[in-house]
């Protein structure tokens, strides 16, 4: 195999010409579609008039209806077999792991995995970790109690499969976790971006330098990671920081390689379509934003056929310097659910994070609130500086932030500071955006 045998987790598939990747995807789509129709009540009902033999091209696939989270909820609530309902693709006694979604957008969806499907998910994560440079010599610290949320379970099992030493860090507070990182000389972390920043901040408050704690690499999960935040984490920890994209239902379907310029779609484990936001019928062009519609092609316990993730991403191309031939996405705008119209302007909270993390490193935390004031919508930003400064300096800073946000979002923000330590700190997913117009 030569030296390249160790660069890729699976050199055969990661450098396969695109036309062959596409053939494998179509073949496996037909297989999983056929399987889903045979084993899942949801798909038997939903795709009655469509035969797997009808599926030969991507155009045929586009004729199959999408499903979304509401479909999953309806197929599950009060339906047999308990508790997974009509989504289940295996006998219920074959379900070996229970996970559920976080419930941010409504009733959580229960996600069952058979042993086979779980191993399939873990295999995808092996790719993700290998691309991020995780190797057998790494000691991977996971600073979370995993509970029913899938994110770190997958990383944990994949790191074990790779041969890393995996140290679970639940049931410790942040200080305890920082002590453990030092005590065991951990070399890698799996965490949310929010918590990565929080740990760094806590370390500094304890007189420690996170840059000198020996962490070499970090994979982030659980929430969007704008590039500015990723670089801030890299600067804070003196480590390489990698992003990925996925969810409890569709699995992790995209991840960063060592180039760290965009995310590779994990082909051929998934068929990922990036469709126009207006009609969800047209594959967007390179550089265009679209909604990711994902079909995991090997996960049989919970088949998902053309699942609308509502993640809004920018389509890239398949020309990464790493040599992988998978299609890429360049940037994520966040979830379609997070997109808001404010005074006629389409707004995504991620745009604020991009500005603050890239240009205002003196700001440690922030909160965005949208309210209806009379007949107008008002958007305000509360920021927490790292240190208190004089009134004039603070006024000037607020003015600069407001101007930059206006340029970035086309919205006028009311920006105000609070004292250091005022805003809440989040350990899992942040809740920095509040739209009070809906309350």
């Amino acid at each position, binding site marked *: *195999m*030569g030296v*390249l*045998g160790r660069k890729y987790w*699976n*050199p*055969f*598939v990661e*450098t*396969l*010409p695109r036309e*062959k990747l596409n*053939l*494998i995807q179509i*073949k*496996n789509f037909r297989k999983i579609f056929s399987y889903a129709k045979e084993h899942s009540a949801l798909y038997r009902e939903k795709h009655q008039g469509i035969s797997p033999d009808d599926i030969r091209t991507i155009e045929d696939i586009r004729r199959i209806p999408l499903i979304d989270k509401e479909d999953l909820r309806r197929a599950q609530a009060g339906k047999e077999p308990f508790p997974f309902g009509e989504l289940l693709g295996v006998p219920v006694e074959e379900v070996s792991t229970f996970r559920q979604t976080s419930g941010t957008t409504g009733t959580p969806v229960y996600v069952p995995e058979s*042993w*086979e499907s*779980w*191993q*399939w998910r873990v*295999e995808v994560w092996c790719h993700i970790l290998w691309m991020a440079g995780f190797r057998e010599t790494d000691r991977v610290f996971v600073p979370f109690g995993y509970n029913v949320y899938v994110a770190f379970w997958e990383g944990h099992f994949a790191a074990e499969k790779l041969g890393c030493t995996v140290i679970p860090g639940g049931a410790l507070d942040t200080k305890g976790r920082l002590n453990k990182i030092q005590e065991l000389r951990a070399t890698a972390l799996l965490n949310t971006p929010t918590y990565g920043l929080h740990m760094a901040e806590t370390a500094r408050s304890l007189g420690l330098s996170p840059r000198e704690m020996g962490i070499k690499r970090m994979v982030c999960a659980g929430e969007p990671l704008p590039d500015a935040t990723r670089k801030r984490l890299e600067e804070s920890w003196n480590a390489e920081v990698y992003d990925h994209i996925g969810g409890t239902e569709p699995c992790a379907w995209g991840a960063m390689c060592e180039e760290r310029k965009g995310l590779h779609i994990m082909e*051929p*484990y998934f068929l990922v379509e990036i469709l126009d936001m207006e009609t969800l019928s047209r594959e967007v062009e390179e550089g265009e934003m679209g909604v990711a519609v994902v079909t995991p*092609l*090997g996960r049989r316990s919970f088949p998902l056929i053309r699942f609308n993730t509502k993640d809004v991403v920018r389509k890239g191309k398949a020309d990464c310097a790493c*040599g992988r*031939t998978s299609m890429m996405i360049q940037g994520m705008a966040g979830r379609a659910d997070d997109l808001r119209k404010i005074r006629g302007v389409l707004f995504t909270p991620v745009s604020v994070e991009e500005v603050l993390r890239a240009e205002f490193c003196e700001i440690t935390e922030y909160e965005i609130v949208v309210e209806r004031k009379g007949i107008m919508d008002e958007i305000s930003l509360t920021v927490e500086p790292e240190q208190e400064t004089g009134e004039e300096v603070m006024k000037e800073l607020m003015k600069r932030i407001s101007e930059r946000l206006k340029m970035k979002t086309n919205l006028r923000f009311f920006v105000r500071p609070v004292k250091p330590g005022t805003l809440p700190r989040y350990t899992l997913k942040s809740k920095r955006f509040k739209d009070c117009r809906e309350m």
Partner: protein
Amino acid sequence: MIGTNDELLRQMKTKIDGIENLVHELKALGEGVPVIEKNTRCILSFTHTLTFGISDVAEVNNEGGEKIWEK
């Protein structure tokens, strides 16, 4: 672009298929015996994974594939 070794992949696919067949035979022999049932289930989950990364590639490759990977 890095090429693939068709012969190597074909051989790997043959081995994977062989492992799968053997495990199915073992499973049949040990039906009703928990240690056999559960462990063969585990092994088959790994061969399922390998079909994605190896067998599928072997199948889709045409004859006369390019030389293996050198940069």
